[in-house]
């Protein structure tokens, strides 16, 4: 019995001590990240049988248990990786949002200042200071575009830098997890069923940190080690070995860094959209969903401003009386052959219709022969399905040359450099084309009341319809101003058809009623055509290399009214028909040589109206007025019917609204996610966290247990002393 008493007392002392140690461990680690509180599990010792039954043999510590719920810890990691992705995306997005926030520094004041200069020229067409203010306004606008684009490029560079540092952090965590696997296996191999609690905490803490960077899935192995997978199943950690990730420029777009995964000796890129979750996922999503489109949207506005302004500017004449040149230099689409291409194929892309431009990038893939497939990356729509080139799609004319190998692909970014590469091409104030190239006049000897208006230049961007009135004749109508350019022209297959500054040829056998249109210099055959007629692409009339007004626009043309003055004859024309006995309708458009005039009133027989060169027309502001009108004209974002739906600033407002909405959305979702994380963490902490009050109580509990056990030994000693004194 004696040993029993001592034995029980000692076991109680030991157990209380273990309890105290565990409580102290909890108190000490109350603020340690990833720490789960521990408890001792105590139980009775194996009882001793005697004749009268089983006597208890005291207490023993069965286990030191970690208060841990795999479910809750998993939830914390899941919500946390999501929250980190949203937060990172939001933080990046806020930078664009803030850049657009300042109403005095954005695009809008620069655009308005530029058009103020244009209006100045319209008010004072021959004033050199006004012309200078227009050019300076243009330079300021270009600088603003460039500054905004620089900021976006900096963000892209920042994303690349952060991706690099995150990938190296991920590698480091992977190493550490592999190391912990090793330690845990080592520690537990000789420990039976006991867990190395603190090592587990540490490993789970590492997995948690990894999840903040990228979403990682954990599969526990039989030996207690963790296998960690990222993306769509790429193993980052397997047992005690970790794989290394790397960053390298994307094979498709060298401006972006991609994450590569090491398999054996080769590195395979992981698709960006597979790397979801965590800060890395947030960065990649920001880059692919928002940064690219913001830069493209800005570029598209710059291209639209440059292109539409140039087109109008080329329709005018400058102070020296020569036709206007390009006012801006406009960016060309960026074409990046995939770095893994093996063929010699090359692709050229030109912008033919600025209205139809989208903000998307495109991928052109070769089948190794003459056929290509074009995919629009914003919605993955296949625009050319294994077809031949050249083709015009979304305002782009795409052509290919060289010998590609099947699978070779090209990334086409039509607008990405738009804002960066917009430049002012004109330096001399004289070169501003404020005047129109032709002028109208009423002969002084006219006796009727007929009056001719100031006239207008037909733009090469006007929509013009060629309608076959029979298989051998056709009419040409300018749909933009309603003028008949020619009627009853004889059709000869392959002959040049020149109007408004462009040239096309029609081949084959069109049926009566077949139509062909040239709209914004893009020629198309009518959808309902029954004949076999085909139309060639519109080109500038040689020797012009750029679309410009009709080459004969300034040639002298005379309109003479016949007797009776219900018809008139026209002489001096190169394009346009008929020229003899043309029926007169007051106010109807009359179009020849690329201009349109209107005669109204009642002309008398023999009355003469002339249209000719506008030489010396330094005070003419007709073209400047049209240039100024571009500010509010709808020139961008074509509807399905091909009509432009918004102005420059409208498109910019759309961009601001897109960025604002996305930022707002991210702000709301990331706040919600943060709340969710807090809730889940609270639940997890509620189970596994250390409560110091509770530990204080436990301290008292185990202290008292220890004191009680001590008392037990004292009692046993006294009993022993009693026995000893009996003998003395």
């Amino acid at each position, binding site marked *: 019995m004696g040993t029993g008493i001592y034995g029980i007392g000692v076991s109680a002392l030991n157990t209380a001590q273990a309890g105290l140690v565990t409580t102290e461990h909890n108190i000490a680690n109350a603020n340690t990240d990833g720490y789960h509180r521990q408890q001792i599990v105590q139980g009775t010792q194996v009882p001793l049988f005697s004749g009268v039954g089983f006597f208890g043999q005291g207490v023993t510590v069965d286990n030191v248990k970690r208060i841990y719920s795999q479910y809750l810890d998993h939830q914390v990691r899941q919500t946390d990786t999501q929250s980190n992705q949203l937060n990172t995306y939001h933080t990046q997005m806020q930078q664009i949002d803030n850049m657009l926030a300042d109403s005095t520094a954005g695009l809008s004041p620069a655009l308005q200042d530029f058009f103020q200069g244009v209006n100045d020229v319209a008010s*004072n067409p*021959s004033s050199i200071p006004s012309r200078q203010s227009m050019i300076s306004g243009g330079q300021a606008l270009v600088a603003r575009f460039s500054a905004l684009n620089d900021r976006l490029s900096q963000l892209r560079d920042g994303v690349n830098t952060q991706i690099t540092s995150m990938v190296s952090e991920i590698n480091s965590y992977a190493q550490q997890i592999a190391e912990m696997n090793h330690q845990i296996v080592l520690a537990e191999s000789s420990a039976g069923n006991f867990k190395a609690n603190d090592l587990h905490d540490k490993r789970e803490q590492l997995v948690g940190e990894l999840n903040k960077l990228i979403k990682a899935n954990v599969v526990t192995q039989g030996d207690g080690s963790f296998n960690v997978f990222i993306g769509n199943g790429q193993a980052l950690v397997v047992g005690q070995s970790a794989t290394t990730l790397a960053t390298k420029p994307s094979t498709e777009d060298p401006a972006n860094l991609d994450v590569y995964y090491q398999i054996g000796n080769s590195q395979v890129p992981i698709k960006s959209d597979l790397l979801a979750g965590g800060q890395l996922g947030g960065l990649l999503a920001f880059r692919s969903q928002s940064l690219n489109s913001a830069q493209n949207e800005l570029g598209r506005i710059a291209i639209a401003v440059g292109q539409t302004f140039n087109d109008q500017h080329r329709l005018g004449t400058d102070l020296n009386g020569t036709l206007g040149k390009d006012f801006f230099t406009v960016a060309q689409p960026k074409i990046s052959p995939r770095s893994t291409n093996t063929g010699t194929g090359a692709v050229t892309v030109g912008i033919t219709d600025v209205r139809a431009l989208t903000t998307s990038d495109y991928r052109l893939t070769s089948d190794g022969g003459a056929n290509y497939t074009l995919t629009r990356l914003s919605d993955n729509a296949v625009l050319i399905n294994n077809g031949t080139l050249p083709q015009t799609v979304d305002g782009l004319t795409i052509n290919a040359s060289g010998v590609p190998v099947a699978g070779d692909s090209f990334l086409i970014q039509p607008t990405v450099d738009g804002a960066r590469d917009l430049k002012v091409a004109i330096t001399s104030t004289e070169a501003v084309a404020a005047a129109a190239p032709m002028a109208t006049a009423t002969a002084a000897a006219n006796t009727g009341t007929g009056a001719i208006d100031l006239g207008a230049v037909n733009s090469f961007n006007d929509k013009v319809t060629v309608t076959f009135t029979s298989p051998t004749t056709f009419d040409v109508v300018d749909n933009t101003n309603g003028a008949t350019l020619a009627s009853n022209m004889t059709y000869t297959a392959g002959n040049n058809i020149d109007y408004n500054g462009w040239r096309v040829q029609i081949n084959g056998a069109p049926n009566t009623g077949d139509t062909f249109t040239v709209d914004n210099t893009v020629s198309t055959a009518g959808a309902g055509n029954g004949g076999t007629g085909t139309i060639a692409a519109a080109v500038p009339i040689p020797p012009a290399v750029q679309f410009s007004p009709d080459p004969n626009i300034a040639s002298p043309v005379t309109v003479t009214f016949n007797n009776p003055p219900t018809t008139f004859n026209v002489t001096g024309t190169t394009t346009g028909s008929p020229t003899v006995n043309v029926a007169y309708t007051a106010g109807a458009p009359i179009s020849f040589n690329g201009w349109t005039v209107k005669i109204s009133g*009642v002309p008398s027989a023999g009355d003469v109206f002339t249209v000719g060169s506008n030489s010396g027309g330094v*005070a003419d502001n007709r073209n400047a*007025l049209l240039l100024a009108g571009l500010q509010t004209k709808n020139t961008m974002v074509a509807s399905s019917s091909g009509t432009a739906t918004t102005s420059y600033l409208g498109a910019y*407002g759309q961009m601001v609204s897109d960025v604002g*909405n996305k930022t707002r959305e991210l702000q709301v979702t990331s706040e919600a996610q943060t709340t969710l994380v807090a809730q889940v963490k609270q639940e997890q*902490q509620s189970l596994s966290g250390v409560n110091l009050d509770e530990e*204080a109580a436990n301290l008292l509990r185990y202290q008292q247990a220890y004191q009680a056990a001590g008392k037990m030994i004292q009692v046993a000693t006294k009993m022993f002393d009693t026995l000893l004194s009996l003998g003395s």
Partner: protein
Amino acid sequence: MRISTSTLYDSSVATINDQTSALLKIQQQLASGRRILAPADDPVAAARAFEVSQSSKVNDQYLTNQKAANSSLGLEESVLASVQNTLQAVHSLAVDAGNPTYDNTNRGYIATELRSKFNELVGQANTTDGAGLYLFSGYKGATLPFTVTASGGSNIVNYNGDQGQRLMQIASSRQIAVSDAGSSVFTNIKDGNGTFTAAPGAANAGTGIIGPGNVLDPSKWAANATSKDYTIQFRNIATVVPSPGGTNEVTITDTATWENSAKNFTVTFGVGTYTVTDNVHSITSGPFSYTGNPTNISGVGASFNWAPAAGSSYTITPGTTSYDIIDNVSGNSVITGAAPPATGNYPRTYTSGQAIDFSNLAVPVANSDYGIQATITGSPASGDGFTVKASTNEGIFKTIDDLASALEAPVNNDADGAKLQNALNKALTNINNDMDSISTVRASIGARMKEISSSQSSGQDLTLQYQTTLSGLQDLDYAKAVSQLTQQKVNLEAAQKAFTQIAGLSLFNYM
């Protein structure tokens, strides 16, 4: 529920962070006065603010353009006002020149003054604007619009500009003309009554004076008068006793002489000679020699269209003045439709001052009416003609130059007097036309300036509206923000206080 100690701290800190950032946002809003600090704060309002601010800026631009248009038009208007003053002076001079007591010298003085007015007007028409561009040269702003070349005593003014008119955008859908080409202001002004112009033939020997005429029905003139180029041709046939018979006749070819004479003569012929007897005063003069047909009988102003036999004698008394209207293109009479008779009376009899109607004509169809009326007074001589043509553009400068030239021509007889009177009539008509034309341009400028001023006031209203809209979209409601600031401050203080109190609670305090 079990709460871990770190949760207690974490959640308190998170709450305090939230409160602080909300407080910071209100502070930023208050400092900037803007409700929307970044587009994300209210994406819809931010995008809308862009649109409204563009509209507002464009509207400001229109206001600027309106000012520029107003000043251009104001300059033009002031030049035209002085042009009109000069024309008034020219008009008074023309009226003055008709004073019958003036002799050639007096008229010469007036002509000199007119020439100086002429130069004044050329100067006014060549005015430049503030930028050194000519006001009235159309698009050719750097080209001198009006140049004068002397040609045979008259000064011809050429217009070197074009017919361009500068427009300015003063509202989103309104472009207004801010200039007028010199041709439409100074030179393209119809002469005569605006529909047709009547003028005496250069060789007229009679004293007929033609007025500007009336247009009774412009549509008939436009539709029926196909050539619009006619001559009212006169024939003044004396009564001859005995009747010479056949196509022989005596015409009065010098009405000035005839009208001042006794109008009753007997002409007696010898061989190659004749004598004239004034039957009223019984005075015989002559003999006078002649060859061929005896024309311009001395002191009578009559012509014989045949050679009378020697010894014959004819008594001449007033006969009939008749006229025909001849289409100068076809050469036919429009009254009869046929070629005018070589001798004998024309189809209509002339009475001084009675309207010559271009009606009841045979061309183009029977009973045609040209819808116009001419009036001739005085005595046209036989063979005199007056042209009636569609009005053409004459212009201010030619009118004045013609008038000055007419005044410089000496008046020696009644025929010259009639010529002068015709020239004065024509000049007065045309000066009135010129003044009307300038007035019309000025009225049009006035109307344009009025339109600009109404655009200005609606533009200013719009500015206010845009500002109100913009302010509503992006400006801060200070009262609300300040009250929010106070509330947020209380919240933060409460959170801080609660934290310190909770953090102070620990069982260890009692051990």
